[in-house]
């Protein structure tokens, strides 16, 4: 028989979700969360928050001029 988390368990665990999503514990929680509509909402909010911050703090390429100055300082060939 599959162990069901109590709502309190899931409350706590949902806050950790998005931590190391590949963790075995997290995988188990994700499966359990599917049976908990409220937790699913919270999980999606956490994921949405992280996603928004990632979009707000985008990755940029280093300008060539910056790399060139760095290599000059480090006395490396261009």
């Amino acid at each position, binding site marked *: 028989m599959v162990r069901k988390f109590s709502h309190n368990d899931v*409350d706590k665990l949902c*806050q*950790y979700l*998005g*931590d*190391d999503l590949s963790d075995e514990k997290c995988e188990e929680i994700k499966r359990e969360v599917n049976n908990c509509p*409220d937790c699913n*909402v*919270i999980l*999606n*909010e*956490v994921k*949405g*928050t*992280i*996603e*928004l*911050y*990632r*979009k*707000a*703090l985008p*990755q*940029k*390429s*280093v300008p060539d001029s*910056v*790399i060139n*100055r*760095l*290599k000059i*300082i*480090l*006395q*490396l*060939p261009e």
Partner: protein
Amino acid sequence: MNNTIELAIQGNKAAQTAIVNDYSERIYNLGLHFLKNEQDAEDLLQETFIKVFDNLDKFQGKSGLYTWIYRIATNIALMKLRKGKREILVDDFMENYDFPEVHRHAHSGEIPSPLIAILNDELKRELSAALERIPEKYKTVFILRDVENLSTREAAEVLSITENNVKVRLKRARTYLREELCNYFENCKSA
């Protein structure tokens, strides 16, 4: 320890160039995320690699090279942040915040995914301001884990704290930021 690192330690320019090419973008972006402007990000990049090559012979290979470089870069970024920065006095608040209303928005619906697509300048400013309001130790973990995609173990190594500490700080940062975001959207709804 791999060959490139050994050659770089011996002063091989090609190996040093390879390391610069491999890690410059990550370190530059780390600088942008922490310091918020391109000049400071460039300064961070330069100071990081000067320190990397000055100390590469001390790298023992116990962690990955990029974790070691991140550690140097993060320490420099934090020193720059602390210089002349006003103290944010919400640390006690974060420490004692037990997030009693974590489910307050459980029935208000998740953050709708289309909003991610229409992330506008105003929202970006709000997100950036919210991140500035959190104490440094939480912001640092959030940036390393959720923005820079370091694992819990890597972030712990970079910051010289336990993995459990990383998790606790990350949880607090995420919950605080989520609440800030929910408040923003509620304000939008009522506007």
